[in-house]
């Protein structure tokens, strides 16, 4: 029988029933001695234990086994299969739930509000940054265009010229400059059409080159940033001493040189004097077409 038990783990109820029968005890007698109710003992032996809470059931089985002298090692393999009732925590009186579903909404709303706030801030920040950088590069171009257009307007209407130094004018100029590109484009389309009709080398304006050649020679390490009128970044790097670079692009160029004293700047073969644009050895300038 021992072999049989080792092969198939028996249910604890069966082991206990066999042990009781071997000792020649009735359920009543066993109940008296083990202090467990006869109905409970019957339930354990037959395996009908669904109604007994597990905490009691396991205790009853262990106590009964101890009383019958059954080793706990024999029972343990089958204990996992013993299922008792698992009582739920219940209220004696029915009550309304205290936590309203509103709390869930409040949580969702605060998540939404927080993310909306962050999104707005992020958008504003990036937008400002873009505007700032655009404003910076178009500002000089804007003023350049403005000076020309202002002159024309002055001739036409006689309005006194506005001071281009104020911040307000500068921003207006940049806005105007952004709205303007259509005009020169249409002009150049007309010009091209005219050129096509009248043949090559007829036009006086053909002598003005479209792209300008810049060259930089450095005698010491310096930071250089060059942006052309189209907003193309020609250079954004630390140039080593003794290096020499050439660029092609549309004027006006927006130039920043970290160590102006060590740089020779050359446009279309002409050396550019950096001194007027230098402040604290840093040169910032907008280089116009000559």
């Amino acid at each position, binding site marked *: 029988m021992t072999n049989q038990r080792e092969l198939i783990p028996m249910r604890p109820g069966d082991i206990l029933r066999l042990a009781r029968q071997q000792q020649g005890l009735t359920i009543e007698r066993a109940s008296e001695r*083990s*202090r*467990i*109710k006869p109905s409970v003992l019957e339930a354990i032996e037959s395996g009908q234990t669904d109604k007994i*809470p*597990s*905490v*009691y059931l*396991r*205790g*009853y089985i*262990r*106590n009964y086994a*101890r009383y019958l002298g059954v080793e706990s090692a024999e029972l343990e393999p089958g204990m996992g299969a013993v299922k008792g*009732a*698992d*009582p739920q*925590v*219940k*209220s*004696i009186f029915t*009550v*309304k*739930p*205290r*936590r309203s579903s509103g*709390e869930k909404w*409040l*949580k969702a709303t*605060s998540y939404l509000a927080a993310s909306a706030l962050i999104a707005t801030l992020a958008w504003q920040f990036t937008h400002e940054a873009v505007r700032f950088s655009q404003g910076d590069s178009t500002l000089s171009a804007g003023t350049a265009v403005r000076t020309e257009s202002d002159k024309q307007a002055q001739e036409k209407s006689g309005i006194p010229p506005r001071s281009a130094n104020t911040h307000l004018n500068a921003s207006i100029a940049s806005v105007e400059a952004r709205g303007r590109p259509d005009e020169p484009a249409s002009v150049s389309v007309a010009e091209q059409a005219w050129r096509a009709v009248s043949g090559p080398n007829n036009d006086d304006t053909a002598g003005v080159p479209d792209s300008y050649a810049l060259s930089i020679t450095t005698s010491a390490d310096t930071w250089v940033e060059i942006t052309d009128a189209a907003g193309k970044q020609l250079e954004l790097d630390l140039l080593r001493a003794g290096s020499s670079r050439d660029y092609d692009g549309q004027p006006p160029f927006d130039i920043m040189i970290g160590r102006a004293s060590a740089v020779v700047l050359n446009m279309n073969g002409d050396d550019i004097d950096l001194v007027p644009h230098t402040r604290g050895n840093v040169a910032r300038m907008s280089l116009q077409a000559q």
Partner: protein
Amino acid sequence: MVFKRLRGLFSNDLSIDLGTANTLIYVRGQGIVLNQPSVVAVRMDRGPGGPQHVAAVGLAAKQMLGRTPGNIRTVRPLKDGVIADFNMTEALLQHFIREVHTSRFLRPSPRVLVCVPCSSTQVERKAIKESAEGAGAREVFLVEEPMAAAIGAGIPVHEARGAMVLDIGGGTSEVAVISLNGLVYSNSVRVGGDQFDDAIINYVRRNYGTLIGETTAERIKIQIGCAWPDEEPESMEVSGRNLAEGVPRNITITSNEVLEALNESLSSILEAVKTALEQTPPELCSDVAETGIVLTGGGALLRGIDRLIAEETGLPVFPADDPLTCVARGGGKALEMMDQNNGDFFASS
């Protein structure tokens, strides 16, 4: 605090078993996430009386217990299940509440359910409540330990039927008769695992002339401690300081000697159980006689304690599954049901 409610939305409800020996935290929807000794190590930088900083909490602090240099002091802020050192309890709770909240975005402000000994006084309950509030809790509920232990053990507490629980904790042992989600009778004696340790220390000093530390005594209790005489006694070798010679000496102690040492503490627990049976209304007493007594708490792990109580009372006695975490699990179940049961189980403060 205006943001307390908002912060609360992002905090988890907690159930804390703030025990003399161990603190367990159950997080709503997650289960028991923390089980650490209730010990705080304090660093005093400018000597005694100077500013104090919490150096370590929990397991790290327990390892320092009894082994600290002059500028570090290890404190067990709870004694006999109640707060003995208010500030340290607050530091302990604060540390543990932070630990179970992984989010660092907002300071946690959870609803907290704390288990208190049933015989604790109003002042003691108030102290626990305030200490939890000081640690950041936005609402504190109290539940009596035997109630939580019974729920955690899986006893059907809502039935109109008596059930007896004996919770032997670190500092207190509590016996209670429960019916219809409430305590019909409860009593607590200030005897628990700590007193067992003390009894072992005293016994070894008296009989062997050797002084052993708390940690060693606890190890003896866990390894060979028993409450019912063994047929084949186990023995264990420990080292302590010999009082006469002043040098470390090894001694061998047997399980039956430990039983002798624990005798007094065990008899006061038995006394409490017998008193409870006497005081319980007859209807419930007959229910208890049928169903028996369920043991919970660390003391239920003491070998033979169920046998001892069964022989003395004549009732079936058995330990619950995983008795150490019964109170925390029960507190957790009460927490999960908190919004439905309208505070059936909660104790008044």
